[in-house]
């Protein structure tokens, strides 16, 4: 049985590597709470290459505008049609910012428009229970003084399955720390990542 490998998407435009600590932190979380065989280190997967298809779960983040090349767009389409899941997180805490605008446009061009994911979706009970939907991040809760909370995640669905999950709640900032620092936290704020991975591996 092959291990789960955490894959970070590399794309030609923007700053794809804006959250380098997230992969290690989430690998630690998966190993901590589940018995899923997980590779001890993640990989970087260029969206424009067929290597993307060897990692059915891929995480994409950034601050800057996103513009896919034709090859990247075609690859993302193939990836989704074959059963892959792409998680896109806006590393900015804003509303209608450049990353949000361009990333949502590119997703719509590649695979279709995003729709609001209801907060009682199976994703929120895939492992841990999140009765109120997607957990808020500290950056939303007065982190920048605006108390701007995004109530929902958005998704592109394929036969009821989440193919692309889009977040502008800035989980990239929320999870961007060394896993050893979890010992200082009363609540592990990376638990939602377990739901993401378990959902991807079981649906």
């Amino acid at each position, binding site marked *: *049985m*092959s291990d*789960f490998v955490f894959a970070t998407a590399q794309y030609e435009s923007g700053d794809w590597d804006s959250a380098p600590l997230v992969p290690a932190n989430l690998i630690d979380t998966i190993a901590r*709470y*589940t*018995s*899923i*065989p997980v590779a001890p280190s993640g990989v970087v997967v260029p969206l424009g*290459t*067929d*290597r*993307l*298809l*060897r990692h*059915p779960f891929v995480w994409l983040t950034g601050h800057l505008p996103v513009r896919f090349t034709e090859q990247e767009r075609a690859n993302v389409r193939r*990836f989704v*049609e*074959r*059963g*892959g899941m792409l998680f896109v997180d806006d590393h900015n805490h804003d509303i209608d910012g450049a990353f949000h605008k361009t990333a949502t446009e590119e997703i719509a061009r590649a695979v279709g428009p995003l729709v609001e994911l209801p907060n009682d979706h199976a994703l929120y009970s*895939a*492992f841990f229970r999140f009765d109120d939907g997607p957990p808020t991040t500290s950056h939303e809760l007065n982190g920048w003084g605006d108390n701007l909370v995004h109530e929902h995640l958005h998704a592109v669905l394929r036969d009821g399955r989440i193919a692309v999950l889009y977040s502008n709640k800035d989980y990239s900032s929320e999870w961007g720390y060394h896993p050893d620092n979890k010992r200082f936290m009363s609540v592990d704020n990376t638990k939602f990542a377990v739901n993401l991975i*378990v959902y*991807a*591996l*079981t*649906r």
Partner: protein
Amino acid sequence: MPSRAELSRRVLEPALRIAALAALGWSLWRAVAPAATAGLVVVDGGALAAALARWSTGAAPESVHAGLDALPDAATRDWLAALARSGTSVGWSVGDAPALAVSVAPVPGPAGGVRIAVAAPASRLVALRDAVGPLDTVRAGGAGASLEAAAPVGAVVATSGGARASRASHDPGEASEPKRVLVLARAGWEGKFVVAALEERGWRVEARLAVAPGARVEQGTIAPDTARHAAVVVLDTSAAPLAPALARYARSGGGLVLGAEGSRLATLAALAPGRVGARVLPPAARDAGDVSRASLPYRPIALRADGVPLERRGDAVVLAARRASAGRVALVGLEETWLWRMAGDDGSAAAHRAWWSRVVAAVASTGHAPVVGAPEAAPLAAAIQALGPPRPAPQAAGAPPADGLPAWALALALTAFLAEWLLRRLRGAR
């Protein structure tokens, strides 16, 4: 002193004369000798029904030979057998009636339909039809022929020459809810994409995917049940708590598909068609687009005596099956088939679905009870069993031999006379 040649002639001439006279005499005897078939009545197929009725109500002859154009139907066959048991010697012969047999079995799977298998001599054309009309015509190969068809109406009838076989299938009017496939695995890409492949092919899938000790993602009813599940796919050892139940399920008629790791569960290993060996990694494929079923890693299967290989990779068996009591068990030696779906060529996702659907269908139970009746699936075999093997019609008394005076005997006599005359001419005698 007579010469050697003269001595030879003195021996040969009488010998040739005796041979010629013997050949003629034997031919004459065959022509006039009383047939050892006194009391024999030979009847052809058209008159047989009336004759049977006559013999059953009146005096039956000592010996009967039925010369048929086609194999007898069940009623005629049984009637002749009854006549034989009543003391009449019954023989039979038939024209062009090849050994023919047909079977009809439902195809397990969401698409349904039936598989029609025909056994006939090689190269023989066999016409298939049901109550509505023709289905197809097939040519028998070395192992017969088979085809899949939508549910036929009434019995399937196979005809070839004078042979006609028929077999009823299940009654589509009694179609019950299609059975499900249960997938048991650890949360991972293989379990996810096996479930996806089977669902996309129309199977109804229930699943239990283990995530952590005591934590599972479940979909549907997990306890294996022959009434509910056509097959169970066990990919790894996460199914260990259910192993005894799975063994009972398989022995009771369920279909079991074992992944390489799943076959290591001791209870299930006893049912598997073989044992998997060390992992083999083929030469690494180039970047995705080249991952095919042939380039997947695999564990070669060492077959049990009754294991049947279904797929090979060179000399290695990578897919095998065997019957386990009332059920069937398949063993998959291929690993990481999800890579084939995700990273293969444009047709790989469809091929992956089709392959897994075929593997499951190979062992799936349909739950259809065989139809009782319609015992004409193998008419020649049935006739031989009831009446003995067919034999040529014997010669009736007073009739010339069916083949006339043997030409070889006449030729022998003529040759012998000619040879004797030549010898006599050579020595000058007349």
